[in-house]
């Protein structure tokens, strides 16, 4: 038995075994990525299963965040970013990293939550509605309905329903992060990307977000990057282990954590490096 499962909190959810009819939401194939001259990803291939939580783990600098940030083309904001290969969004196989695909439209389909909670300097309501406004949704009652739904999905509705007009900065760090999750959920994304969403939070706020993520998988496909192996073990269905920009192993979370097939994965999980 490994370390990671020992520290599992009560919030643990038993990973559901991959059912044979589970569909693939996205498929990464032979993805290379460069920051200018530096190649950060080397031929990464992995599936993202529909309505499941996929965790990406690995030591810092292994490229796990880089990989995640390819999914919504946030790298395009910085000069010198270059992709090769594909991330196909199923079922139509749209290659998210293709040059001919507009990164803004990709981001409209793929929601993202960042490491540090970063609500906009606006009201709680406006924060969640911002993702709806950018796609032209202006109908007041529809916006209100979707904001409420997203806040409920993000398990923060009860805490903020009386103060939707208040600035988002008044919320605590954990609440801000759940607000950011609600903001990403409101437009009903095809994929929800979480980039170490609890690294800036205290253990209680972390536990709340973890149980929330597990629930989310009923509605949305989640890809989460985490440096916390316990977290990956607790909340994910599939796990990818990365090292030096390469995907070392991908599989069912239980298998990765109990019976990794690659030595490097075993070394990392048992804390021998990283």
């Amino acid at each position, binding site marked *: 038995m490994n370390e990671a499962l020992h520290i599992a909190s009560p919030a643990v959810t038993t990973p559901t075994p991959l059912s044979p009819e589970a569909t693939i939401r996205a498929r990464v194939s032979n993805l290379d990525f460069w920051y200018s001259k530096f190649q950060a990803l080397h031929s990464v291939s992995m599936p993202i299963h529909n309505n499941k939580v996929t965790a990406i783990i690995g030591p810092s600098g292994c490229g796990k965040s880089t990989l995640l940030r390819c999914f919504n083309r*946030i790298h395009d904001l910085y000069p010198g970013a270059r992709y090769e290969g594909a991330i196909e969004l199923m079922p139509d196989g749209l290659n998210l990293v293709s040059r001919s695909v507009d990164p803004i439209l990709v981001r*409209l389909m793929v*929601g993202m939550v*960042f490491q540090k909670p970063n609500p906009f300097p606006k009201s709680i309501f406006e924060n969640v509605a911002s*993702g709806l406004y*950018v796609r032209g949704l202006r109908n007041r009652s529809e916006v209100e309905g979707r904001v409420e739904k997203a806040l409920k999905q993000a398990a923060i509705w009860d805490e903020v329903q009386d103060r939707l007009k208040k600035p988002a900065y008044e919320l605590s760090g954990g609440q801000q992060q759940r607000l950011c999750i609600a903001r990403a959920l409101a437009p009903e994304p095809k994929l929800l990307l979480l980039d170490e969403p609890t690294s800036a939070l205290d253990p209680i706020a972390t536990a709340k977000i973890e149980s929330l993520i597990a629930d989310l998988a009923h509605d949305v496909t989640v890809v989460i990057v985490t440096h916390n192996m316990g977290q990956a073990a607790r909340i994910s269905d599939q796990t990818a282990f990365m090292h030096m920009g390469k995907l070392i192993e991908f599989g069912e979370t239980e298998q990765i954590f109990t019976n990794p097939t690659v030595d490097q994965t075993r070394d990392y999980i048992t804390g021998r490096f990283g």
Partner: protein
Amino acid sequence: MSDIAIRAGDDTRRLVQVKRRQDLIFGVVGILVLFVVMGLLMTLVADLLIDGLGRISPEFLTSFPSRRAAAAGVLSAWVGTTLVMLVTAAIAIPLGVGAGLYLEEYASKNLLSDIIEVNVSNLAGVPSIIYGLLALGFFVYALDMGQTILVGGLVLSLLILPIVIVATREAVRAIPSGLRESAYGIGANRWQVMWSYILPSARPGILTGAIVGLSRAIGETAPIITIGALTYIAFLPPAPVTSTPPWINFEWLNSPFTVMPIQMFNWTSRPQAEFHVNAAATGVLLLCMTLMMNGFAIYLRYRLRRTVRT
């Protein structure tokens, strides 16, 4: 420190004392210089107040310039300054913010952006009188616009453009990249990110820069002299707001004008002492405007820093 000094020999102890004394002396010199600078500023303010404060009265503010010093006032000058500043702000702020935004958020590192960068930095150092010559040769004669409020506002806006650009760039640069990434992350396009997220966050910093720039423009004399703005203006430009439709009229833009610093320069360069009193009074008003504007800008920045820290 003292522990070492006690254990060390006499020479070392003396050396430590010498060093301490050096530091002390320099600290005192530094404060002295500050006092000299402050003293000079206060002397200047006091000199103006003594010379001119008694001259400031409602009549002084509501009279036109006159050949008789005692009857002269600054009505046309402060109206002119106000109108010219309106034009300056209306031109310099959007252009400066636009250029700053472009350089900071759009421009990729290439030869063109490098040229623009060197260029903006040089423009900030071009003497104001050169802008005056530009306005004289280009606006007044080449474009045949005459010596109007519009030209005055144009030349001053070009003059303060670098200040607004630099302030915008600094304000935008100070925005955490997290805000930018999350704004793009919800699928906003570049302009939406600028308009809805970057600009609102940069607003206090931009405002500070704009105020500092405008306060510099208020006090600028040389470029206005160069375009040949008359110094004796005994009438007001047409009112921007009229009692008949369409209620707004832009004829004032084409009116000749004078401004406060021109009026002050004019009175200062007369030989008669009575006019110097008028000059001092104008100087007091001018100082009040610029110091208040700068004080406000300093306050804004102070508040901004505090909110950023918390």
